[in-house]
């Protein structure tokens, strides 16, 4: 039940609350989706194991908090380089061999990776739901008739900052330009002397670092368990397809749309049905604009 509604405040409060919730949620979804869309845009691989890296990020935050009492935001500084390394290693060990293989091979490589990681977590840490409860998760901020949790605000702010850093990196650094060139035309980039294997290594590592950071950020807000990544990754697929696979700005807008659908859908019809709305949206987009709301028409039939 929405707090504003229970208090019988004016309608405007409800709208303000829904709006704020949408933006806060959208920022976090964006960080998860941006890594997925980056990997797709440059490597042309849909990473079906993306959610499992999020889950690992959440576990990293959980254990750091549980064993050493470290705050998830402190863990973030370790998580980003750690997951960059994990992504790098995963590329070298698993993805490099299938980067030029058919879609089916790529799909099932990442699906296999996802099954393996999920169950490594299950074997090591059991299926129990675990929660991280730092002090800031119980601080409520009330502004102009809206109420939200401090962890949510900080998670949003950090997610937004990281996403913007990534944007700036892609736009203004040499490596970013090289990555975009590879995304546009792999063969031409190779002919210009770009080491595409190195680009893929860095891309995969950055994508996984984003989702590892997102894992630390969402850990105070959601429970951690071996299949925790699934709910987020399904949502990230919706976001990424909405925005157009490979389109980073599209992913930001897609995140806001999905968050809005989720927030308003839960408010009007109840939390139980919220997923139905974004899947309905997903199917509608796949049917009517499969290249995404802002994507180039026809991209989906090229099988890219």
């Amino acid at each position, binding site marked *: 039940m929405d707090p504003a509604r229970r208090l019988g405040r004016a309608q405007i409060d409800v709208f303000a609350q829904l709006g704020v919730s949408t933006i806060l949620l959208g920022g976090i979804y964006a960080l998860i989706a941006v890594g997925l869309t980056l990997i797709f845009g440059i490597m042309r691989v849909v990473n079906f194991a993306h959610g499992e890296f999020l889950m690992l990020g959440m576990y990293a935050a959980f254990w750091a908090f549980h064993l050493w009492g470290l705050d998830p935001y402190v863990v973030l500084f370790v998580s980003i380089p750690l997951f960059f390394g994990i992504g790098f290693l995963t590329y070298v060990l698993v993805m490099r061999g299938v980067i030029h293989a058919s879609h089916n091979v790529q799909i099932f490589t990442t699906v296999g990776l996802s099954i393996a990681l999920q169950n490594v977590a299950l074997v090591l840490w059991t299926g129990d739901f675990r929660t991280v409860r730092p002090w800031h998760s119980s601080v409520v901020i009330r502004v102009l008739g809206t109420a939200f949790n401090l962890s949510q605000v900080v998670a949003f702010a950090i997610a937004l900052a990281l996403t913007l850093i990534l944007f700036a990196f892609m736009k203004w650094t040499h490596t970013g330009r090289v990555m975009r060139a590879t995304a546009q035309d792999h063969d031409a980039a190779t002919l210009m002397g770009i080491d595409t294997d190195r680009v893929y290594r860095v891309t995969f590592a950055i994508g996984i670092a984003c989702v590892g950071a997102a894992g630390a950020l969402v850990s105070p807000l959601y429970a951690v368990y071996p299949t925790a990544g699934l709910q987020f990754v399904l949502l990230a697929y919706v976001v990424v397809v909405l925005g157009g*696979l490979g389109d980073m700005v599209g992913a930001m807008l897609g995140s806001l749309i999905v968050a809005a659908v989720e927030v308003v859908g839960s408010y009007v019809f109840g939390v139980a049905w919220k997923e139905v709305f974004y899947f309905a949206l997903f199917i509608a987009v796949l049917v009517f604009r499969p290249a995404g709301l802002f994507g180039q028409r026809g991209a989906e039939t090229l099988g890219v």
Partner: protein
Amino acid sequence: MASLPPGRRAAVGLLGAAALLPLVVRDAFVLDSLILILMWGALSAAWNVAGGYAGQVSLGHAAFFGIGAYATALTTARFQQSPWLGMVLGVALSVAAGGVIGYLSNRLRGPYFALSTIAFSQVLLIATSRWRGFTAGSEGIPVPFRPGLATLGLGHVAWVYMALVVAALYYAVQVWLERSRLGYQLAGVREDEDAAEALGIASRRLKIYAITLSAAMTSVGGTLWAQYVGFVDPFYVFSIDLSIRFALNTIIGGIGTALGPFLGSMLITSLETYLRATFSGVKTGFAGIYLVIYGTALVLVVRFAPEGLIGLAARFAAAWRVRADA
């Protein structure tokens, strides 16, 4: 017999061995494993019709499995009707669902298609787990056991033969696909859709045929599974894990081959049963170790032996022939 190609001979041998096993062994554990191998094999064969022969790699086939399972659970438990009626209803619903999914997504290729099938199965999962008034929601439904063939309340031995009939039938469907005009056209669409269309093949319509046929076959498997196991739980029957399982068996055995799904099921199902029996008491959650092996095996197989066990067997056979000739 001697004139049959080696794959067919192996299939006849394996199915024959499965038919003879219940005459010799009466151990419930062995028979249960055999039934599951045959059922998962048949279901993977159903997946193979769309995923292997038509190249429509679906990660949402649990949708049709779940429809079949729920159709029989609801007709028997809620309306006290025959499970066979449930099977027919399930097939009708799955054909309709397959038609809709096929119609809506057949423009999509590669990962887009896989993503859309996941979305469809998730919508069904959410709908069944939340619609408490009709489907009993996330609690699931126990399927009543009434002895007799008409009510599908069978003993272990009878279930072996039931599963065997379905497995043989599905094998035959695949062999028919390999030889028929439809099968050749589907292969054309799978290998190069644009070229196939240029030759006048109505690729989008054919893809709908393939997925509806596959959906109907999967639904029958779902019905039988629900009757055999006796309980339907939405989070299992509509799960992505289940969809992956159909694909996994097929890929490990050999995608796009008639025998592949059954070989994959033999290997994966017996590995699973064995590891479960061995590790289940050791530590909670440790049973998940078989899934770690499964996932790793999938990564390794698609990388190093994309044609699966069948491909490996063919490679070894060729090497052996070369040595025999020398």
